[in-house]
């Protein structure tokens, strides 16, 4: 695809008439000299597809590891169909977020969907699966048990986010708030997956509200962390 929009000749002429300030020769020479001093060869980073697979596998492995530690008391309360379909929903979300992160790691990557869309689709997929598969029940201790699940989910998300960040930092992400939000969302998804197979309250309201909100909280925390990091860099750059 090599389209150029039909632009106006009048605007083109004005663009050409206007003076442009160009970089002075001395500046260009100074930049070259600075870049060449201590210049080292670098190995090109893996392709976005390769990085997406690595990120997806990392999300899955961390989920399996934490789930094995916490136990499968929730999984035994699910039917086979519920286990299968909710796993598909969670895995699809993990794939979307892994793809989005891999694109954000390489500047100039063609992003077929935005990070915000990836987060929204991940959450929507999980909520839709829960709404379709699980009964609408409500118990008296919903608030207490719900807060416990949310707190546990957020606690799981922190180390998961750190591990994902270790992989993401090998790229060269430019938009720190969005990368932070995506890492937060991915770590929140790990927590949701762990909770799904551990939590004994397999009820639609509990799952969608108290588990689902972990993704939102972690995404927002990641966004705030990315924004804070960007502001810190702006302050310390000069």
């Amino acid at each position, binding site marked *: 695809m090599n*389209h150029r*929009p039909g632009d106006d*000749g009048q605007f083109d002429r004005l663009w*050409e008439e206007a003076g442009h*300030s160009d970089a002075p020769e001395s500046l260009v020479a100074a*930049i070259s000299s600075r870049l060449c001093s201590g210049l080292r060869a670098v190995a090109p*980073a893996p392709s976005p597809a390769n990085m997406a697979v690595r990120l997806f596998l990392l999300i899955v492995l961390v989920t399996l590891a934490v789930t094995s530690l916490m136990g499968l008391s929730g999984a035994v309360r699910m039917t086979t169909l519920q286990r299968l379909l909710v796993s598909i929903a969670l895995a699809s979300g993990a794939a979307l977020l892994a793809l989005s992160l891999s694109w954000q790691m390489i*500047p100039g990557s063609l992003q077929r969907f935005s990070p915000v869309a990836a987060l929204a689709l991940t959450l929507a997929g999980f909520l839709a699966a829960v709404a379709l598969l699980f009964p609408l029940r409500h118990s008296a201790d919903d608030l207490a048990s719900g807060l416990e699940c949310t707190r546990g989910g957020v606690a799981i998300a922190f180390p998961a986010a750190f591990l994902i960040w270790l992989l993401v930092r090998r790229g060269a992400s430019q938009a720190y708030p969005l990368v932070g939000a995506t890492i937060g969302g991915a770590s929140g998804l790990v927590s949701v997956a762990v909770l799904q197979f551990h939590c004994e309250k397999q009820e639609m309201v509990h799952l969608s509200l108290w588990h689902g909100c972990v993704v939102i909280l972690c995404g927002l925390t990641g966004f705030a962390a990315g924004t804070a990091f960007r502001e810190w860099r702006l302050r310390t750059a000069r």
Partner: protein
Amino acid sequence: MMPVSAPRREPDARSTPERRVAVSNIDEEHLRRLMIGYQQADSQAVESLVRLVSPMLHRFLASPGSLAGDNDDLLQECWVRVHRARHTYRATEPVLPWLFAIARHTKLDGFRRHKRRNSREVLYGEVPEPRLRPRRDTAPEANGRLQALLNALPDSQREVVVMLKVTGMSLEEVARATSSTVGSVKQKAHRAYEKLRRLLSEETS
């Protein structure tokens, strides 16, 4: 090490002189070889790349109302970021979207820094600063008109128009550089040119 030469793509014979100057005539294949040389620590490739691309980057980084010194600082900062990110360039992908994605974020951060500085600093008095070099402004009236037209556009539309004019990138390449979709870039460019045509016709009438 890659040999450094500077083949130039022949200008499009059908294009008007205005279009030829506006559109980059840098060979993408040559740029790709220079980037590979950069990754392989070839200093000649680095020098050629910096000389070739800096004019485009400098024009792109210049904001309405910005000082020449600020643009020079942004250019330096952009190249530092390019240097740190050079391992992420992939030889199978075009160079310009990769470069301008980094330049775009450099420009955004420069704008944020400028805004923070203005909100926190108070100007006590005018101190005449020695002009290190005269700003090359061959047609100040045309430059003023151009800036006024560009200022009338929303930021996202202005960015797309400037990128298309300065680099000659395709819509898909601009979409990559702006982390957007081709449809979105097409829409922004269409709306921007519609508005520019309207403003220009209002001027002439």
